[in-house]
């Protein structure tokens, strides 16, 4: 059942990504090109997704537990640190260079481009390097 729940959410997520235009790197770069020929529509993707979570998460929080697991695992940290800012900056630069963030890159493998696979392999390598560099951090 848990595996099916994961598949279900992933399917809706991937469907939404393709419908929204987020799997089109040209559209994403056009959206980030605020000082050029700005393509605003993608702003609505995060806008409407956040609208759903802003309304839905508080409603879910009223329940004692999720339907198929023992507890809700909401992130607990509230502190801001340099690592968060550095990480978000590096991520944003990578996103702005090519136009893929992790979800659209994974969904985009169906387009059959070798470059997408190279992007994902480099991404996993980057994750491993970051994990190694912060292995002694709290």
């Amino acid at each position, binding site marked *: 059942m848990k595996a099916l*729940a*994961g*598949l*279900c*959410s*992933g*399917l*809706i*997520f*991937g469907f*939404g990504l*393709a*419908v929204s*235009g*987020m*799997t089109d*790197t040209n*559209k994403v*770069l056009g959206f*980030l*090109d605020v000082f*050029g020929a700005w393509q605003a529509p993608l702003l609505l993707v995060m806008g*409407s*997704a956040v609208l*759903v*979570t*802003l309304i839905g998460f508080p409603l879910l929080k009223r329940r004692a537990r999720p339907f*198929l697991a023992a507890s*809700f*695992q*909401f*992130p607990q*940290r*509230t502190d*801001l640190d340099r690592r*968060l*800012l*550095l990480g978000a*900056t*590096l991520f*944003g630069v*990578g*996103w*702005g*260079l*090519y*136009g893929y*963030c*992790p*979800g659209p890159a994974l*969904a985009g493998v*169906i*387009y059959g481009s070798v*470059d*997408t696979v*190279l992007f*994902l*392999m480099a991404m996993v390598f980057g*994750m491993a390097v970051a*994990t190694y560099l912060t292995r002694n951090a709290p």
Partner: protein
Amino acid sequence: MSTAINGDLAMAMAGGLLIGVAALTLMALLGRVAGISGITWAALTAKPRENWRWLFLAGLPLGAALAHGIIGVPLPQGSSLSPTVAILAGLLVGLGVRLGNGCTSGHGVCGIGLLSPRSIIATLTFMTAGVVTVLMTRHLVPGVLGAMS
């Protein structure tokens, strides 16, 4: 406004709503945040292995295939950038999402929905970094990406 732009707006909104619904589904059923970078890393490293993560990740391309195949969403044109740029970008994205504990989905869609200050700051930061990067590559140092072949 042209029909194409209106169509893009409607699709962006519909797609965004679905992404939000997917995040709600995962939270309602399994109590987990639908953060794709976190799920990817945990799928590769977490022990004991939990199959839902792999199935969630498999659902992403399958869901996209359904969108193109069943309701006929037009296929993207594909990138004109070189494999070198793809690798450099992937490396930075991987480093960044691990150091910053999340990407567009975890911080942007879920974290803001939970009104997490870390996620709000992270989202503003990576959006700004993305905009500045495109400003550089398209307007201030045009041709820099073309030089990376």
